[in-house]
């Protein structure tokens, strides 16, 4: 029943096997399969539609690179769009007058109490904040005790329980105590509630009105199905949320609910719960969830092939130039662009063996992204003539370029030294022949690159 995405797309495109740009027809056929894949990953239907509408214009007319199949191309486009839609993670917003109130919200059993304790631990240990935990759950048996036990485990104070006190009053007392005793933050755990339960939604909205939380976090199970849109929408509209925490990511659910909730609320997913222990909280990374939703086991290999192919094509082009002995600073700029693209790719592409190697080399050579960007700027400030023939670059030209690119002369010197090293390596490579370059790829061209691997 659960055919995976690449099989499906493979079947779809077997019939097409075209080259050139993706036609409207190709794209429509592919997107039908993408739709099913997303539904099987529990992305809610309205969100699936919206997502597909977003992908379509990006895919139609897109050039299919040589040696990449249309299926691979579509997967890449879908993956990128998914990462973009999921958005980047964001840390907790603590920019408020202390004690900063943080409100936990969600359905029954979603993981609110556990996550409240995890956040308290995070704030205490990483941010050195003084945190107070308070349970507003007067409904579930032993809920307040549960929070008290967890608080003790992480050595964070919990607001003493006053029998019979109601949620709004507890919230008020928690903030008062926190203010008086100079706490930095106060985390308010609430009872689980159904988003269609008017009385309980009203209750928590009143709490929110009272304390005006800096963060209202919707805590949701990664296993959540189609209902994710409804619940996220309700909590967002009736109480207001500032972010989402996805729990039980340590399970094997595909996690489509993440996309559903992010899409309907427009709020960032801030953290992932990855276990029952109190240190099992991670910052959200869109690639991780995108890979799951797309069933990346296969997609990785698809994209891997695609990435290899791109590398190979560029290597071929480069090899031709080399054969004619014409590697200039324009080529270097192209290489830097390529590297920056790869360096910026975490997730799938970053995990590929070949790319990992290049990334390591980038790190070894201390070529961080910012540096590569600056080097591109330097080359961009040169005249065409200078780029073709770097020997023209005397001291005064270097000063001009430094001013033009917002860099310094020593930086330009370093870049030119790097170019020199590369050119030398090119000569060696030329001896090795075109095959050698193809085998070793662009990585071999990096300083510290070498051939031995």
């Amino acid at each position, binding site marked *: *029943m659960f055919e995976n995405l690449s099989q499906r797309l493979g079947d779809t495109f077997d019939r097409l096997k075209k080259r050139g740009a993706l036609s409207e027809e190709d794209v429509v056929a592919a997107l039908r399969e993408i739709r*099913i894949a997303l*539904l*099987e*990953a*529990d992305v*809610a*239907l309205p969100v699936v539609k919206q997502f597909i509408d977003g992908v379509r214009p990006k895919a139609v007319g897109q050039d299919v690179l040589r040696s990449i199949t249309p299926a691979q191309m579509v997967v890449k486009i879908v993956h990128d769009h998914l990462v973009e839609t999921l958005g980047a993670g964001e840390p907790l917003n603590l920019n408020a007058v202390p004690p900063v109130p943080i409100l936990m919200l969600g*359905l*029954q*059993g*979603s*993981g609110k109490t556990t996550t409240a304790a995890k956040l308290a631990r995070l704030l205490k240990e990483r941010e050195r904040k003084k945190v107070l935990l308070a349970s507003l759950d007067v*409904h*579930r*048996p*032993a*809920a307040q*005790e*549960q*929070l*008290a*036990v*967890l608080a003790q*485990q992480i050595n964070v104070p919990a607001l003493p329980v006053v029998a019979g006190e109601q949620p709004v009053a507890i919230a008020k007392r928690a903030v008062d105590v926190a203010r008086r005793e100079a706490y930095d933050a106060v985390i308010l755990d609430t009872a689980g509630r*159904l*988003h*269609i339960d008017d009385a309980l939604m009203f209750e928590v909205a009143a709490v929110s009105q009272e304390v005006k939380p800096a963060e209202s976090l919707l805590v949701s*199970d990664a*296993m*959540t*199905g*189609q*209902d994710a849109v*409804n*619940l996220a929408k309700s909590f967002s509209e009736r109480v207001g949320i500032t972010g989402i925490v996805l729990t*039980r990511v*340590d*399970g*094997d*659910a*595909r996690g*489509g*609910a993440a996309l559903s909730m992010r899409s309907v609320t427009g709020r960032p997913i801030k953290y992932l719960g990855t276990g*029952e222990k109190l240190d099992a909280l991670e910052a959200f990374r869109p690639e991780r969830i995108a890979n799951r939703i797309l069933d990346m086991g296969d997609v990785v290999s698809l994209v891997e092939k695609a990435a290899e192919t791109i590398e190979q094509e560029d290597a071929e082009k480069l090899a031709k130039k080399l054969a004619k002995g014409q590697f200039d600073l324009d080529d270097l700029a192209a290489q830097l662009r390529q590297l920056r693209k790869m360096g910026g790719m975490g997730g799938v592409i970053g995990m590929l063996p070949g790319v990992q190697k290049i990334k390591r080399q980038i790190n070894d050579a201390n070529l961080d992204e910012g540096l590569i960007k600056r080097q591109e700027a330097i080359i961009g400030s040169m005249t065409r003539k200078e780029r073709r023939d770097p020997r023209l670059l005397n001291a005064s030209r270097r000063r001009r370029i430094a001013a033009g690119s917002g860099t310094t002369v020593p930086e330009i010197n370093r870049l030119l030294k790097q170019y020199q090293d590369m050119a030398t390596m090119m000569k060696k490579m030329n001896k090795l022949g075109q095959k050698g370059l193809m085998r070793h790829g662009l990585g071999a061209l990096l300083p510290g690159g070498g051939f031995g691997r």
Partner: protein
Amino acid sequence: MTDTAEKQRSWFGRLKAGLARSSAKLGDGIAGILTKRRLDDEALDQLEEVLIAADLGWGLAKEATQRLRHAKFNQEVSPEEVRRTLAQIIEPFLEPVERPLVLDPLRKPNVVLVVGANGSGKTTTIGKLAKLFREQGKSVVLVAGDTFRAAAVEQLKVWGERAGAPVITGPSGSDPAGLAFTALEQAQREGSDILLIDTAGRLHNKADLMAELQKIQRVLKKLDPTAPHAVLLVLDATIGQTALQQIQTFRDLIGITGIIMTKLDGSARGGVMVALAELYTIPVPYIGIGERVDDLRPFEAAAFARGLTGIDS
């Protein structure tokens, strides 16, 4: 007798209220699609989507609409007719799992092991079951087999009080299998009717935690080779297609004799139950429709199917 009948009626009323909420949208959807319309391709596509939104899964939604196509294609149909036909299509999937929990009145005790993912409603469901059995005049003993989660024992103790059932506990962090063994020994000695064992929540992909359940079963068998007499998996209606993988793994590794679906009082419709019924045919004796002690209902295929398609009476 009349008392029970009346209670049942009000039970049914509340079940309907719960299910009506969860089906309101589906019903609206169908009405919206079909008012004064021919059941054409477009309408069928939209119906398929409505079923998908009920967590029926893409494959089954397609199958159900295919069958609807065969029955009614290109006919002028009222929304009510479409609902009824859809319910008739779905009901046979569910019918085989409408099976009660069978316990032997002579066996002392019947050992019931309750398992499931984190936060699915195991402890609450045990409280509800205990109350139900107590009302039937059975002696019930609860075992606080979740020695891991904070205040899990205290939570079960509250439920024990509500149901009028003693709770056997062990120290926090102790071996749940050891506790289960001691509890069964005690229940055998005292001749209790039913021993309900709570367990910590666990995700099915955690091998060590699944092995822990297997150990509990092995240890119980040392005292009674036929135990446990029921292994109930508690499943949250809010979860999506992952339920299929979850049930399969639990079934393969520890054997499941029954599924209880909880939180059907929410707006999640638990449509995944249809696929579960088709694939695994594991009995569904009860459903949970709230947080209170009496919010447990027998599962009824017809009512569930009607509820899913938005039929009110």
